[in-house]
């Protein structure tokens, strides 16, 4: 037995180490709901410890390198490269005198320009709270597009914070260490950012390909997608705020995995290969200048006072309405003497129904006809007969003419409605 272990010692050590690493890999990989394997984004404690050790081993030399690089540059700029400074100083003094004169005339223009600049940069200045950080290293592998920044948990950085530059988005914080953080760039194969094409409003997910070039994957073919179109963040991924520049469309290629889809190759707006200073969005809470905050507080206070005033005014009007007599009588009279009409003849409006009339049953009343005839209800004879019967009475009522003319039965009084004078 001893000879077996001695003879195959090398192989046994190799197999033991390989087996340990395979088990370690199996712990880190899990199957997703979609049936595909994935590395758990939240590292287990042991894996996180190894990453922390690696970071602690690599980050200090990287910091030292950057510090010495900056120190060397400063040493050269401030001490060694000072030849001819006296002559340069004299020339600069003359230039200063001249510029002071120009400054007075340009001051007003500068103020105006600053005001315009404030207006233009308003959106950028008020929206987010950011933290400047220095990129200090990379993963060292072209299959892992991550880099390290010199700010970590000591600056309250957290996972999934967006990392941007003034040119465009860069990535998101993937791992936070005590004094550094690991940032997953948008051109990594495992990254994902919700983006939208600015003109065509087509949405998609941005991730990197094998060559480290970001592309929007899983898009249906669309003729409107043209090179040069701007790509911005869609804001639906809960990481990148909406509207940040991402890049421009370079071209379209068929999706190698799915036949009916295309990939849109994007040229990133940020220089991902030469990152130096980056900004970490630490809060998406609105950040207003002090003056604007004071204005907003004043506005809120005024708004509250105005609302109270309106409320008080409304309450007073209600009290007045209760105390003053109403414009409509609560119990209207049943007759209108002016018109002489009975309640039955009155024509109330649709909303003028009084309680009395509403309570009693409505009895239909016939209107008086303007020209009654024999068919008119209540009429006993023909109109001609009425005229005949009424004519003597009218004649009788008339005084006899003094001229001696005999009143004869041929005298027919003109109808009352004719309006014509009777012929003598």
């Amino acid at each position, binding site marked *: 037995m001893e000879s077996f272990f001695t003879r195959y010692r090398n192989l046994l050590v190799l197999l033991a180490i390989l087996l340990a*690493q395979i088990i370690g890999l199996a712990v880190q990989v899990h199957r997703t709901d979609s049936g595909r394997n994935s590395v758990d984004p939240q590292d287990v404690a042991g894996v996180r410890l190894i990453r922390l050790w690696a970071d602690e081993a690599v980050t200090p030399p990287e910091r030292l390198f950057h510090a010495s690089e900056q120190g060397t540059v400063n040493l050269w700029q401030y001490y060694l490269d000072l030849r001819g400074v006296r002559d340069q100083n004299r020339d600069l003094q003359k230039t200063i005198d001249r510029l002071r004169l120009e400054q007075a005339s340009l001051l007003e223009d500068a103020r105006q320009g600053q005001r315009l600049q404030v207006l233009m940069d308003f959106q950028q200045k008020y929206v987010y709270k950011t933290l400047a950080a220095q990129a200090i290293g*990379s993963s060292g592998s072209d*299959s892992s597009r991550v880099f390290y920044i010199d700010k970590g948990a000591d600056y309250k950085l957290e996972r999934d914070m967006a990392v941007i530059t003034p040119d465009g988005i860069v990535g998101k914080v993937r791992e936070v260490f005590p004094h550094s953080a690991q940032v997953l760039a948008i051109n990594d194969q495992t990254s994902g950012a919700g983006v939208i094409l600015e003109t065509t409003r087509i949405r998609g997910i941005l991730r990197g390909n094998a060559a480290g070039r970001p592309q929007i994957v899983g898009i249906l073919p669309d003729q409107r997608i043209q090179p040069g179109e701007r790509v911005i963040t869609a804001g639906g991924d809960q990481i990148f705020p909406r509207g940040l520049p991402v890049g421009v469309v370079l071209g379209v290629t068929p999706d190698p995995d799915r036949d009916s889809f295309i990939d849109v190759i994007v040229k990133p707006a940020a220089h991902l290969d030469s990152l130096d200073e980056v900004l970490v969005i630490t809060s998406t809470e609105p950040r207003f200048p002090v003056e604007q905050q004071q204005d907003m507080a004043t506005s809120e206070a005024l708004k509250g006072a105005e609302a109270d005033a309106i409320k008080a005014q409304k309450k007073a009007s209600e009290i007045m309405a209760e105390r003053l007599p109403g414009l409509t009588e609560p119990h209207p009279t049943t007759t209108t003497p002016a018109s002489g009409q009975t309640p039955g003849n009155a024509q109330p409006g649709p909303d003028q129904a009084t309680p009395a009339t509403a309570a009693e049953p409505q009895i239909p009343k016939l209107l008086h006809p303007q020209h009654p005839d024999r068919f008119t209800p209540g009429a006993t004879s023909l109109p001609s007969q009425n005229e005949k019967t009424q004519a003597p009475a009218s004649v009788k009522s008339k005084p006899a003419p003094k001229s001696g003319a005999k009143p004869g039965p041929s005298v027919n009084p003109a109808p009352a409605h004719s309006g014509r004078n009777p012929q003598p």
Partner: protein
Amino acid sequence: MNILGADYRRDLGIRHYPVLIYALTPLAALVLQALLPYLLHGYAWFDLPLVVTIYFALVRRDPIQGTLMGAGLGIFEDALTHHAIGANGIAKTVAGFLAGSVGGRIDVENHTIRLTITFLLSLLSGAIYVFIYRILLGLDLQWSWFAELMKAVGTSLIALVLYPLLDRTEIRD
């Protein structure tokens, strides 16, 4: 083929280096592997930890030492990425083991042989990495032969410069 003869192999000795070289060279390789791609604007077509692993495994002629160094450097290299820790470790473990095994059978003083072994093991390491990631773990990983080939070439070029420098640090009687 005198270099493969048994008498020749017996004459070969195991090299010794200062402890600081053993400690600092792998660490420097890790730091430079993380720093140089940043300074070279993203170009990472080389593998310094693999160069160091192969070198020490070759000159020490010890498969176990090559295995351990390859595993350690590979795991640390994995830890600097966001990938699963172990894929690079397994690849470099195998590379270190093979380099240590081959080191006892060939003339490791010959630069051409060392560079050829470095080139081949770099390709093998890349292939093992892709195999583990795509086949064993079933994860999505796009890769290209061209990139792996260029990485092997870059690694060999660095070895061309680094091996003679490390040879100078050897403790001689």
